């Protein structure tokens, strides 16, 4: 399945290139333009060179302080939700029923939060968490906790994190489920014959098979949590104070709230650059994983031309790990 070299393929890609260039490159040029200038209104602009960027990366200035603080909050947020959602998603995927109508029912319910508009997700948790009218807030307060996400920093954080877990764990679970589904039955039978423990099956069969989808899951979850805007904006509005102001919220505040074009543009570029770098790292890891897998698969095929034997031991499963 080697691809043939054909430069005419560019004609097939051209529409995509034009559409995305129109909505990505053109606006980005405006951003670059603004980031070098300052304005005192009336559409009069002054050259400011790299002034905004210097200010942005210097924590002692107002702009820099706000940017770096929101960046720190955002990174912390991303790490926390990854640490919760990835293991939880794997557990949920492993808990999926095997067959029957319950599979479809579970899939539909799992996918439901993903299809709710993000501001409605915010609204749902706003209503659910309020101490006066929300079930969660009411129950917590009745149980003796002084829970109020509007006035307490920690409560606001917990609410935003639980909301994100509610919203996106299903994505990780569905991805892992797709990975698990691709494991042939023969692998499990072989493991059973080898007397492998439950943990060994997970470590030697299921986890390696989920590798690739897990990578996609981590990539998507990291990126989307790194640019989260709507949900915390609706629930906490970035508050109390600035405690849940993430980078996107800060950026929109500067760009559309204060209309401070230069500062906003400089922030946008640095923000975009971070995303680009992380994206590139993931992309490299992902394509490398793909190549390795292909090589591995083809060498397996070459050595064992008949993959039909159900009793074939799993190559990856070492007996010493398997005996429980």
């Amino acid at each position, binding site marked *: *399945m080697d*691809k043939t*070299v054909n*430069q005419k*393929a*560019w004609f*097939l*890609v051209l*529409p*995509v290139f034009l559409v995305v260039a*129109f*909505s990505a490159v*053109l*606006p980005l040029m*405006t951003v670059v333009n603004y980031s070098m200038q300052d304005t005192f209104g009336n559409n009069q602009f002054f050259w400011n060179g790299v002034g905004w960027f210097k200010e942005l990366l210097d924590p002692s200035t107002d702009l820099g302080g706000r940017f770096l603080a929101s960046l720190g909050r955002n990174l912390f947020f991303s790490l926390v939700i990854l640490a919760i959602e990835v293991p939880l998603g794997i557990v949920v995927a492993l*808990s*999926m029923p*095997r067959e029957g109508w319950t599979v*479809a029912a579970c*899939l*539909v*319910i*799992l*996918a*439901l939060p*993903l*299809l*709710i*508009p*993000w*501001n*409605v997700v915010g*609204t*749902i948790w706003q*209503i*659910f968490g309020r101490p006066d*009218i929300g*079930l969660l807030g009411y129950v917590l307060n009745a149980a003796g906790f002084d829970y109020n996400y509007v006035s307490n920093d920690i409560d606001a954080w917990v609410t935003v994190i639980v909301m994100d877990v*509610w919203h996106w764990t299903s994505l990780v679970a*569905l991805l892992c*489920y*797709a990975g698990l589904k*691709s494991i042939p039955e023969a692998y499990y039978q072989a*493991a059973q014959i080898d007397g492998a423990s439950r943990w060994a*099956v997970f470590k030697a069969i299921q986890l390696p098979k989920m590798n690739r*989808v897990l990578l996609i899951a981590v990539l998507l979850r990291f*990126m989307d949590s*790194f*640019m989260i*805007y709507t949900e915390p904006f609706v629930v906490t509005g970035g508050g109390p104070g600035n405690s849940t102001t993430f980078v996107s*919220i800060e*950026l929109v505040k500067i760009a*559309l709230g204060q209309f401070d074009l230069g500062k906003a543009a400089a922030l*946008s570029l640095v923000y*975009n650059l971070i*995303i*680009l770098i992380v*994206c*590139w790292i993931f*992309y490299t890891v992902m394509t490398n994983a793909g190549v390795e897998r292909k090589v591995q698969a083809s060498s397996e095929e070459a050595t064992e031309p008949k993959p039909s034997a159900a009793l074939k031991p799993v190559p990856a499963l070492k007996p010493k790990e398997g005996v429980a």
Partner: protein
Amino acid sequence: MHSIPGRRLVMGLFLIFLLLPIYWLVNMSFKTNSEIVSTMTLWPHTPTLQHYKRIFTDESWYSGYINSLEYVVLNTIISIAVALPAAYAFSRYRFLGDKHLFFWLLSNRMAPAAVYALPFFNLYSAIGLFDTPWAVALAHCIFNVPLAVWILEGFVSGVPREIDETAFLDGYSFPRFFIKILVPLIASGIGVAAFFCFMFSWVELLLARTLTSVQAKPIAAIMTRTVSAAGMDWGLLAAAGVLTIIPGALVIWFVRNYIARGFALGRV
């Protein structure tokens, strides 16, 4: 062997965790406002349809749903139409800069909407598309086109290359082969890609809100603006929220067998 001990319990608890907040929203939407603020009730004691009636009769409310659906459908059509040939190209051929182009597309899927809000506002104002469904539909292409290319590429790669070759030997021209043979073969993939374009365009708020003011205002923006302007009408807000969940729930049902594969971007 396949699954873990106590899986029913885990699954059950997780599903309850997912459904409880949604139930609370539905519950609210059938309560009168006085019941909402005065007592804590687990189900509506004096059920009312007044909030739903208001949404379906007040044009400033129901037009929001029409506006939203309009740009979502436009965006889905544009995304799939441009992504199909590109997916074929990426799947079958190598060409100058293909890997860089693919990465560039991927990076646009990840670009934060907040970065583009202001420049899009300028751009679409300048070309006179501001406050039309086209502005939002085109703006959403920035993340939906790469996604569609990604998903479709996975599905096209699942079609054996021999089929192309046989078709060309039989004298099919490229466009005819594309429409008559390839598209029917990856119909499920197109369905999945369309579902994802629909989904991501439907849930997005920031760009949709920034690029519209009066004529094309999406329901999500109406919810955030109207409600905060008129004080908190919790029942109405809840009813509007419930109605935004329904289209999503409907389309999930149609693609339920492909959801998992689609979320893996056709790459399992």
